[in-house]
């Protein structure tokens, strides 16, 4: 039974945080509030699609970095120095990867293409993983190293797939799917506030629901840089409250 207080519409980052246990205190507070006050946590079709797309894009990106970028550079570095491709990995390979990542950092700084941080996340992950293996004195070839990295990703992405189905496809947790018939005029008015696709569609879905159901609706997000910093103007012009999960309940009381 839903609450007379109103309902929440959740942004993509809330779902991803729940799946990957990021921002746990904020998400747990939201879940606790929603459960105690019987407030429905809706997920629009557009959020559902974006969550799925983001997971796929991130895994494709990581897979390609391992399969193409890292592999290609390691092989090339070894060939230049006449080291056999079958030899176990050593600090030489870690230094070759250092060179690879430095090259990309310089390239990004010069061209402003891409962002530094996703690359540094991969760098930390790859180098610490290889460093741990070498510290333990384990012999590993480039091929085996790649396989181990991919195995870790496959284990994780398959678990994420299950959690996505648990949460969204089969609605076995605190989330309810809500199909919304979009109105392009509303989407465009959100977009006019410089809220880009697909965020403007997510917010438009919450607005349409609020209008159609006459139920007070709060759009819950962790996006501070492009939604929450405009929350006043969004509310003033479009009548929808956007807020951080910690405070969502109090906007309905």
């Amino acid at each position, binding site marked *: 039974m839903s609450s007379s207080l109103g309902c929440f519409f959740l942004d993509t*980052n809330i779902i*991803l945080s729940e*799946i*990957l*246990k*990021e921002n*746990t205190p904020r998400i747990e507070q939201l879940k606790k509030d929603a459960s105690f006050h019987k407030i429905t946590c809706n997920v629009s079709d557009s959020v559902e699609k974006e969550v799925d*797309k*983001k*997971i*796929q*894009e*991130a*895994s*494709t*990106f*990581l*897979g*390609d*970095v391992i*399969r193409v*970028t890292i592999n290609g550079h390691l092989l090339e570095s070894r060939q230049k120095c006449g080291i056999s491709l079958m030899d176990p990995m050593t600090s030489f390979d870690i230094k070759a990867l250092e060179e690879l990542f430095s090259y*990309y950092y310089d390239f990004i700084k010069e061209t402003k*293409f*891409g*962002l530094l*941080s*996703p*690359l540094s*996340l*991969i760098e*930390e*992950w790859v180098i*610490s*993983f290889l460093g741990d293996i070498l510290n333990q004195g384990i012999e590993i*070839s480039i*091929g*085996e190293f*790649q*396989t*181990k990295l*991919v*195995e*870790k*990703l*496959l*284990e*994780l*992405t*398959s*678990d*994420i*797939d*299950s*959690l996505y*189905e*648990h949460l969204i*496809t*089969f609605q*076995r947790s605190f989330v309810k799917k809500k199909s919304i018939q979009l109105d392009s005029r509303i989407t465009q008015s959100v977009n006019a506030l410089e809220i880009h696709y697909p965020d403007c569609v997510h917010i438009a879905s919450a607005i349409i629901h609020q209008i159609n159901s006459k139920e007070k609706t709060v759009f819950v997000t962790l996006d501070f840089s492009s939604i929450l910093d405009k929350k006043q103007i969004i509310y003033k012009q479009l009548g929808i409250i956007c807020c951080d999960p910690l405070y969502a309940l109090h906007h309905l009381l």
Partner: protein
Amino acid sequence: MTIATVAPLSDYSGSALRFGLIHIRPIQVVETVKKSGIKFQRTSRRFESIKSPKSYEELVNLQNETIFSTIQVPDWFDVNKLVDVFSQDNISRYEQDEELKEMVENVKNTERKGRPLLNFIQFMRKRFETRKDHYVEIEANRFLRSNFPLSFYTKFVVYDKTYYSLLKVLEDIVRLYEFQASSARSFIMYEKKINELKRKISPILDNLDQCVFSCSCLKRFTMVWNSREYIEVTNPEFLDVEKVDKMEFQRLSGIFNSKIREVRGFLLHYNPDFLFKEIDSQDNTTKMFGKLLMFPSSSFKI
């Protein structure tokens, strides 16, 4: 690099499950034995196969005929020859898998003493458990020998994990019904309980069969379009996404994904929590992936 070529258990043992648990019927054998000069009647119960010994081969052949009549095949291959090559590959893997073959045979030949059906399903589950890391390694190696996106291989790992969950559900059902059957006083009651067991697990295996079929269609499709000779069709050197027809690939992937979803939805009736996984948020891979997802997709470029 070691390239694993052996397929996961779920690739070829769907039929073995059906053979071990469904294509059997309980029989009662009454023998006269002489002990210390006195004649006794000894009654034993066992399982016999409903199908003829050649049925496994026939079944595999039929499955491959259906698969190749469903998918597009390049014109440099003859469909009948492909059916033959893949069927022989399935059969030889089953034949080489002495452990599995022996277990299936044991179910049919063992006397009722003990719990032959439970032993069989526990054997399948435990074997999968000990090999599941290896199955992930197989998919990782397949990914590295291809230019297909990682998400394509993730679905095969999801499929293997679903298969494992299904084995655990089957084990629970078999344990309960075989226990009830083993305490039955008459053969009629015993037979009734075994038939109840078969009725209970049949829909699960039907669901699994559809999933195995859609998985096989997708795998065979990518394999044959990446081969030029019959000798390489069961294990092509490299899987090139450009060599497969995109529309057909999307159609088969869509069917496969929806079949996995159906089986998982079906399994939720038996185990409502099986999709819930405890993700270790302190694990480096999880932390990296979680942070990566918070960036806009446009930054996923190198």
